[in-house]
């Protein structure tokens, strides 16, 4: 893929990077707001995540005496990984200068890197909850990761590429075809999204019951700016996953190569898709109860199965 206008491309890449880092907490706020509405509550408003971040950045960090440097650098690594992931997924235009980096397998690797660091940092302090959370996180993620790869392979097989811009280009702009294999992959992807982002029914992002936590248990020892970065990274991760879902399954509206004039419309389309996706996520979370932790393997096994079905359909029916 060649870039038609390098300067414009770089400017646009910067613009998207800034946009995602600001949009991500807003998306979290939107999901929470929708959840509140669905529960007959008035809700804290869209800007609540920003208020929380501001509050946390103004506090003094409390760090355990026996924390190693790993514990301190993890929030930055986490934030960096998630920002990178969210910034390189083509959600507005496909010809970004960083797009060769947007390889789906590399993307899975970025998520894995962040996870490895947070799990290590959780065990670093040596509290029971940190290890408990890290252990559960690993249980969930090692089941979610293969399912995610299978989903991505379904899309790759159709477009003959593991590069996201190329996949989007094929799915959105070449010819309008409905792919049954992608329908199965989309279902699997939703399950992986719920599990990987610590959402109900696998984890509960708003719980205060420390014994039931997965993600929250790992970050119990963090405070102030470190916690703010982790929270922000969490929002970015959710944003990245939803972006990935949009890029793979609803890419229509994303601007084509060289077509910079389509960008404003693409931004509007993106906002619409994000609003819909956030509301859908909130609806799912309101309807479901959290499952017993040992049901999570079955749940994620279903995701893997669906993704493999998608692949088989592609091979057998060529669809």
């Amino acid at each position, binding site marked *: 893929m060649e870039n038609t206008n390098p300067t414009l491309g770089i400017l646009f890449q910067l613009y998207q990077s800034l946009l995602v880092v600001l949009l991500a907490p807003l998306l979290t706020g939107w999901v929470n707001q929708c*959840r509140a509405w*669905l*529960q*007959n*509550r008035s809700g804290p408003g869209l800007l609540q995540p920003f208020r929380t971040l501001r509050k946390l950045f103004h506090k003094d960090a409390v760090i355990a005496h026996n924390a190693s440097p790993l514990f301190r650098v993890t929030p930055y690594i986490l934030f960096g990984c998630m920002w990178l992931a969210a910034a390189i997924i083509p959600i507005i235009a496909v010809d970004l200068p960083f797009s060769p980096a947007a390889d789906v397998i590399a993307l899975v690797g970025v998520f894995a890197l962040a996870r490895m660091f947070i799990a290590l940092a959780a065990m670093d302090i040596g509290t*029971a*909850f940190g290890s*408990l959370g890290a252990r559960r996180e690993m249980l969930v993620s090692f089941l979610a990761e293969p399912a995610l790869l299978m989903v991505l392979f379904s899309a790759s097989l159709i477009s003959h590429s593991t590069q996201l811009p190329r996949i989007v280009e094929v799915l959105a702009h070449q010819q309008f075809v409905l792919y049954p294999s992608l329908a199965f992959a989309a279902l699997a992807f939703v399950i992986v999204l719920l599990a990987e982002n610590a959402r*109900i*029914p696998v984890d*509960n992002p*708003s*719980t*205060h*019951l*420390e*014994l*039931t*936590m997965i993600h*929250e248990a790992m970050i*119990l020892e963090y405070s102030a700016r470190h916690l703010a970065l982790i929270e922000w990274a969490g929002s970015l991760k959710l944003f990245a996953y939803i972006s990935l879902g949009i890029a793979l399954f609803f890419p229509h509206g994303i601007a084509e190569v060289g077509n910079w004039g389509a960008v404003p419309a693409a931004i509007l389309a993106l906002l619409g898709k994000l609003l819909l996706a956030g509301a859908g996520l909130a609806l799912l*979370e*309101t309807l*479901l*109860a*959290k*499952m*017993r*932790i*040992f*049901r999570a393997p079955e749940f994620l096994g279903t995701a893997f199965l669906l993704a493999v079905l998608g692949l088989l359909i592609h091979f057998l029916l060529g669809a």
Partner: protein
Amino acid sequence: MPIAHPNLHLTRLGGAIPAWLGEIEPDDLLPVCRNVSDGGGRLVALWGSDARGDVGVRGNGFVLHVALVNESGLICLSMALDAGQPAYPDISRVFPAAGRMQRATYDLLGIYAHEGHDHRKWLRHGAWHGFPLRKDFDAAQSRTDEPDAYPFVQVEGQGVHEIPVGPVHAGTIEPGHFRFSVVGEKVLRLEERLGYTHKGIEKRFESLTLQQGAKLAGRVSGDSTVAYAWAYAMAAESIAAVKPPERALWLRALFLERERIANHLGDLGYLGNDVALAFGFAQFWILKEQVLRNNAALFGHRYLMDKIMPGGVAADLAESGKQTLRDECAMLEREVRLLRGIYEEHAGMQDRFIAAGRVEPKLAAQLGLCGLAGRASAQAWDARVQFPCAPYDRLDVQMATYRNGDVAARVIVRFDELFESLRLQREILGRLAHEGAQEDARPEPLEKLPGNGFGVGMVEGWRGEVLVAIHTGADGKLARVHPHDPSWQNWPALEHAVLGNIVPDFPLINKSFNLSYSGQDL
């Protein structure tokens, strides 16, 4: 006579519930306890008092009091103990629930069980030395900062590790420490350590007047304030041989049922929240809030604190208020029926509830599980049914029991009791119109009690039976008041309920019992 024993002479106490009082010798305590236990009876409470200064009291030492219950009523036994060596036979072999009560009694009064197998501190936590409930205790001299070492029972084996939880939790809840021994996620053993909210309530009673004591009794456990205030009033009225006005009794029952309704609504919401079904949480809490607001508007306090006083009640219900409550009843019945349908048909939720935290009926009987949790494990005890004090003797309460003993059973019992309480509330509203309608429910408050009296009150609060015992001194002042919460019996059962379950299910199981910390730490 509730029990037959050659050396035991029981005298019937006056008052609203069938209760007997008798003196017992140390050698007879265990046989009598066995007798009651074999007959299907249970231990309700165990406490001690300091009678060393009292003139003419047997032995001039300490006194141990044991309250047992069987199908004929409450049996209060008192046993004189030597001042120098205040020891009594260990009854935790017959009633396991006695173990912690004996330990707490030692921490407060220095009387101890012979051959008791567990001598660890229960309430003391290294914050003071001496025994606060002794009359010669000097609070100013008692401060200490002993190291707070508490040897938990260790579980050995490959892969076994401990998870310490609390007393400071991630949520805003009462403090308690839970020590889990686990393999992976499976719980091998849970040991509770409570006592973090000890605040010297029993000592404080000694310096209060009867009416002040009523306020304090209502603050032992805020969610059961009506039950405590009623039990306290019942005990005081039993000593004074006073019968409150008919209308006051109907109002007390109304308050008690409203307390049950509010707490069951709150718990059902919390149980939804604990399986991340925040929808249920929000809906039930809207309903609970409506009940509390009606309480505030009609009676002047959201939780009905200080509305029951010895001698009567401190609030009345006007004719317009009755209509508000009838409307509220209709609204609650409609909404709760709808929500019950949602809870029962929600597969994800039922999957979490069913078979979690099971207490088999046999185990429940051994441990003396009582109240709501007991009824979910086929322990058919409900003071409103078995020992109906006025006005329950005219209400014909239907007891809700269930055999499964799991979280689902405790949810079902809550729903059933909620509907029964709504029915009772309707009935009470109807009766209030003609029974004692001309009376004033707020008579002159009871101020003075006869000297050297003993009275006991027992009320079926929403959590279980709440007992308050009052001893008066020679001058008629409060000499010793012992409030007893059903949580004493049920906390140890929780340790059994969680065995074999997985760690993340503990908060749900704990919530399905919803026991009081404050009520038992006193």
